[in-house]
């Protein structure tokens, strides 16, 4: 039935090397939590997290577990459950480097890689302290005669390529195409990543390309290096359209992670 060989979760985890730039999906686009816990167990170090555009419990857990040296994000938060405590503590004590950004800039940097151009322009941002502290960003005067306002200052952002992306999705078809629905930012992430691995709830014995609707809402297998079936793989985060987040569990985490000791206890229980 399947035209691809399914991987084990361990095989995906083993693809992640120390120091890699790891793509992190937002809480609404399929957070690979089972994978993340296995990654923590493995004890990977010095990861650079690239969040599109933010992270919640996934980033906080990785930071609290000492797996991260750098993070580029527009926000790290537990949403309705308040601040991401391990992230805040790590930044306040200088344990990790945070490259503060803003959502559209994080998208644009990956879009540059999608198009294989060295940079992408963006409006706004000029005059903020975000821009002031980003030495990798540049402001130029608009050189175009026929579009925009001539000489208008415009921000240029460098193309960013990810080493690896892992996300969780509802299903793949028998050919390894992944259903992502309207979460098109997953396609942006995938296009801009050297390697892409996906954990899925299930594999369907159909071909998404036989139907216009399912073809339009999938990430083609050509961008995917491997798939592993992981039931409930986003828990306690939501898998949009399939299950909602386990708010009790996230609340439990938010309280436990307020202290280093509490976080340690929680991780012992959850790993």
């Amino acid at each position: 039935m399947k035209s691809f060989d399914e991987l084990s979760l361990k095989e995906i985890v083993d693809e992640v090397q120390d120091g890699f730039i790891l793509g992190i999906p937002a809480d609404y686009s399929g957070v690979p939590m089972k994978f993340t816990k296995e990654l923590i167990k493995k004890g990977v170090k010095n990861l650079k997290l690239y969040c599109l555009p933010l992270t919640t419990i996934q980033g906080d857990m990785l930071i609290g577990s000492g797996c991260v040296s750098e993070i580029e994000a527009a926000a790290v938060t537990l949403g309705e459950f308040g601040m991401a405590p391990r992230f805040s503590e790590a930044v306040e004590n200088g344990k990790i480097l945070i490259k503060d950004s803003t959502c559209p800039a994080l998208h644009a940097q990956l879009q540059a890689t999608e198009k294989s151009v060295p940079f992408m322009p963006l409006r706004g941002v000029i005059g903020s302290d975000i821009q002031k502290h980003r030495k990798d960003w540049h402001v130029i005067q608009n050189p175009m005669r026929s579009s925009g306002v001539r000489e208008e200052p415009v921000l240029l952002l460098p193309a960013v390529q990810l080493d690896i992306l892992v996300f969780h999705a509802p299903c793949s078809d028998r050919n390894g195409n992944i259903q992502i629905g309207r979460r098109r930012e997953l396609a942006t992430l995938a296009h801009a990543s050297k390697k892409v691995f996906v954990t899925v709830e299930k594999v369907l014995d159909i071909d998404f390309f036989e139907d216009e609707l399912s073809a339009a809402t999938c990430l083609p297998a050509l961008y995917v290096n491997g798939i592993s079936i992981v039931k409930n793989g986003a828990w306690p985060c939501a898998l949009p359209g399939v299950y909602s987040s386990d708010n009790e569990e996230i609340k439990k985490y938010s309280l436990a992670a307020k202290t280093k000791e509490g976080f340690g206890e929680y991780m012992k229980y959850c790993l």
Partner: protein
Amino acid sequence: MNLNIQREELLISQLADLLKNDKHVAVGAASPIPGAAALLAKEEAKFLNKRLRVTILHSNKYNNFTDGARELFDCAAQGRIDTFFLGGVQIDGQANINLVGTGKYPKIKKRFPGSFGSALMYFVVPQIVLFREEHSPRTLVKKVDFISAPGVSEKDVYRPGGPKYLLTNRALFRFNKNLQKFSLYKINEKETVKNLIKLTGFDFDVDNKISQMPNPDTNRINILRNKIAPMVSEFYPEFANRIWGI
């Protein structure tokens, strides 16, 4: 009839009043009160035979986008969003907002989540409503410790959008772009101008049309509690549970 209007319901009502001329309102992260206000304004627009489009980013149901998370920013940059809401750990007298933290960046004392999309949205959405419940000298400051997005820009910077209002649980300010200054527009019935001067870290003017924040009438409260509250619980379940017990 005593409606026992809650503080959050009063704020929702104030925000809904600011959306009356809009065609498209978008609501970003961590914004249950603006989210409820936008849905309330949409519902009330129907009675006037008007159509208000509402996009709530953290909802699957009340979300008009299919092109991924970047569509909000592209859509805003195209001028297709009339009102958006932004908050701030600190907001200063020039309407600069700080969502990053306190202390001298990058060695900050207290770290908050981050700037989200503010650094673009503040520039391109015509009506930005700043919303911060806590009205105190630590939230409304003379000068923010970090500018996530500036309140005003140099003349040559592309900026069709910017701050129009600032709502706290004590007052509503209007922002005067030319003077680069807030003016006090409406105050909570329990407040005095004198007390607000004490509780505000920046200097502000007092509008000559200053009035009390009106309480929502029975009609509005009924719509909010019966129709809007269950909608809010889809995307902010904790909030809906705390305020309306659903």
